[in-house]
């Protein structure tokens, strides 16, 4: 017998106990510290060592940075101000920032032109990079190269307009005749574009039309600084991407002539160091053109860097093409799509998505490789530092400040590119 009936119980809890806060060491910052920094003896030691290392680095560099002098005419004056204490001479940056950004010969009163072109670059690239934006913005992207050319190099506005009109006319002729024969349409398009381009010669350079929208011309030799790196980087990446895709497709082609031309081109370029190609562009071509004529050095360099990175991009894209299951190709064929349609609608969208990290890798590498032009005496950012600035009697002996600044600028751009590519990969991810 038991008297454990309900009535016999003195107290019955009718509501649940309010949840008490977890123990201090099982939640909040303490748990985070314990889990992430002091998880076991070994990890604790590593954490302490890491903190010591960070402290040592910061305690040695921060006084140098914080104590930096931003206003002094020469290195000697800067050292006088510092008077033996630790500190950086950032004054070289505040005195020569314009040379670092624009080169030493770009006319000072015209800095707004490349600066404006740089600002417009973002507008032009936005619809290409972020495809949720209205498609009509692409019209501006198409116009941008001509605007930027006019802004940076100057000259009458007629030249870029004629170039643009020639391109449009050529394209329209091509579209009109494309149905009859691809090769003929191509030829007719090129001829009609050339006719338009030669118009400027026909008009004669002293005509009044050339004074419309005339900006003072700046020769390529006067370009320099980070502007030159940006120009080379942007131009070469934009040109080498389509060329690289074409090469990758060509390499997969079943037509032996196209295939072997592409294979030989890619393998040759990949077997040659970029610096060799740059020397060819700057030195060897000088022998073959008569003095004073010939192609502009900037264009020669753009061609060489573009060919170089196109070969690498071609291999990356080929990797993407090879990674596609054969079924995709067969599915495209079974839908009755021809080669162009299948490639454009089925194959490339998937292959390029796979290739994004590789392509971005090449783009970042290419951008940094543009500093190599300093060895062929073009004054890009590094060329400016190593040449004119370090060779001036005022600033000979400043290294860390200048190269840190260059590193910072390059880091900002390259980190931006890599962040964009990660966003793009997330945006394109369809395998959820």
């Amino acid at each position, binding site marked *: 017998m038991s008297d454990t009936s309900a009535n016999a119980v003195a107290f019955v809890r009718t509501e649940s106990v309010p949840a008490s806060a977890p123990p201090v060491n099982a939640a909040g910052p303490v748990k985070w510290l314990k889990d992430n920094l002091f998880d076991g003896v070994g990890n604790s030691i590593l954490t302490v060592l890491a903190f010591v290392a960070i402290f040592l680095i910061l305690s040695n560099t921060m006084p140098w940075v914080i104590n930096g002098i931003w206003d002094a005419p020469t290195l000697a004056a800067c*050292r006088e101000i510092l008077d033996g204490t630790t500190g950086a001479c950032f004054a070289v940056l505040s005195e020569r920032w314009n040379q670092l950004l624009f080169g030493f010969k770009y006319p000072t009163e015209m800095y707004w032109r490349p600066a404006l072109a740089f600002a417009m670059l973002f507008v032009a690239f936005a619809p290409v990079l972020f495809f949720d934006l209205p498609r009509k913005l692409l019209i501006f992207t198409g116009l941008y190269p001509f605007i930027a050319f006019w802004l940076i190099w100057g000259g009458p506005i007629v030249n870029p307009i004629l170039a643009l009109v020639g391109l449009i006319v050529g394209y329209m002729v091509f579209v009109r005749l494309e149905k009859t024969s691809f090769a003929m349409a191509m030829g007719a398009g090129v001829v009609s574009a050339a006719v338009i381009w030669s118009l400027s010669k026909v008009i004669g350079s002293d005509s009044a039309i050339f004074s419309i929208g005339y900006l003072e011309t700046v020769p390529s030799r006067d370009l320099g600084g980070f502007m030159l790196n940006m120009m080379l980087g942007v131009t070469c990446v934009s040109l080498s991407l389509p060329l690289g895709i074409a090469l990758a497709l060509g390499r997969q082609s079943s037509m032996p002539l196209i295939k072997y031309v592409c294979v030989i081109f890619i393998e040759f370029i990949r077997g040659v160091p970029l610096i060799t190609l740059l020397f060819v562009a*700057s030195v060897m071509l000088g022998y073959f053109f008569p*003095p004073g004529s010939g192609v502009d050095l900037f264009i020669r360099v753009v061609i060489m860097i573009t060919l170089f990175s196109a070969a690498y991009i071609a291999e990356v894209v080929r990797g993407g093409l090879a990674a596609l299951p054969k079924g995709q190709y067969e599915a495209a064929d079974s839908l009755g799509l021809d080669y162009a349609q299948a490639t454009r609608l089925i194959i490339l969208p998937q292959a390029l998505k796979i290739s994004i990290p590789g392509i971005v890798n090449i783009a970042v590498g290419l951008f940094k490789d543009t500093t190599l032009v300093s060895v062929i*005496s073009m004054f890009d950012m590094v060329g400016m530092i190593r040449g004119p600035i370090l060779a*001036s009697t005022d600033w*000979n002996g400043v290294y860390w400040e200048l190269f840190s600044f260059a590193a910072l600028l390059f880091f900002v751009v390259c980190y931006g590119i890599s962040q964009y590519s990660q966003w793009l990969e997330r945006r394109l991810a369809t395998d959820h």
Partner: protein
Amino acid sequence: MNKSVLFGAMTVASLAAGAAAAGTLEDVQARGKLNCGVTTGLVGFAAPDANGEWKGFDVAVCRAVAAAVLGDGNAVEFVPTTGKTRFTALASGEIDMLARNTTWTLSRDVDLKFTFVGVNYYDGQGFMAPKELGVASAKDLDGATVCIQTGTTTELNLADFFRANNISYEPVPIETNAEAQQQYLAGACDVFTTDASGLAATRATFENPQDHVLLPEIVSKEPLGPLVRHGDNEWGDIVRWTLNALITAEELGVTSANLAEMSAGTNNPEINRLLGTEGTLGEMLGLSATWANDAIAVSGNYGEVFEANIGESTPIGLARGLNAQWTDGGLIYSPPFR
């Protein structure tokens, strides 16, 4: 093999084509600008200043030639060249002359087919050591560690010097002058060796230059001067005599300050011939009578150019030494203007 023959043939053909074209003087006059090769930057010798204006000892030679030929010291297109591109730029005709601290050697003169028109700076390899090391002569450097740029003639000169004096050393190979400065200051080597003018310029950038001494020994000959292509002697003469005009002007006491006064005519016939008030020297060169006057007017005579760019009043602080006039015991000597 076939390819190199082909390229060689093309090079020769293009050189021949360049030589067959009109003379360099006519080209320069038609262009209205002198294309002058300089370094991409060497302290005191050639570097653009904060306003992008080229300044320096070699630059002054370019400007003087431009003034002699075109009457305007600013009618120069400075073409920056590196040590690797300088000779091809000159050979291919991209530049009309090269004034880029280039050492006059037999192989450059004969094999590369250039004409060195003179010497505007007599350099030589020297040594720099910290004062606290207490050495007074390079011969005391037995067993020292030496910072040395690899692949240069300085490396060979150094070996020769130590062997000839029967002492030993330990080389610390480094790649660039900037690296050498850092290594030397960090104490990685006892001594740093390179051209004496470079040593002086380097020392000028140190925080405490007075703690370092340049040793008196100069162990090699590095005559630096402007050069032109083989095949156009008239042009070579113009560059040679423009340089000589600057040198003669110093010898005769013609400075930028008294130039106007002197060019009105003096009692010294050589000054008169130089400045074109007597004789037809300019005409013989194919230039105007006032060619030397114009050249000197740009930045003064040789001595003034030296003082303004690398002399003792500048941070580089080079003494005239070998580069004093022959009348002062130096090697700077111009043939007579007659």
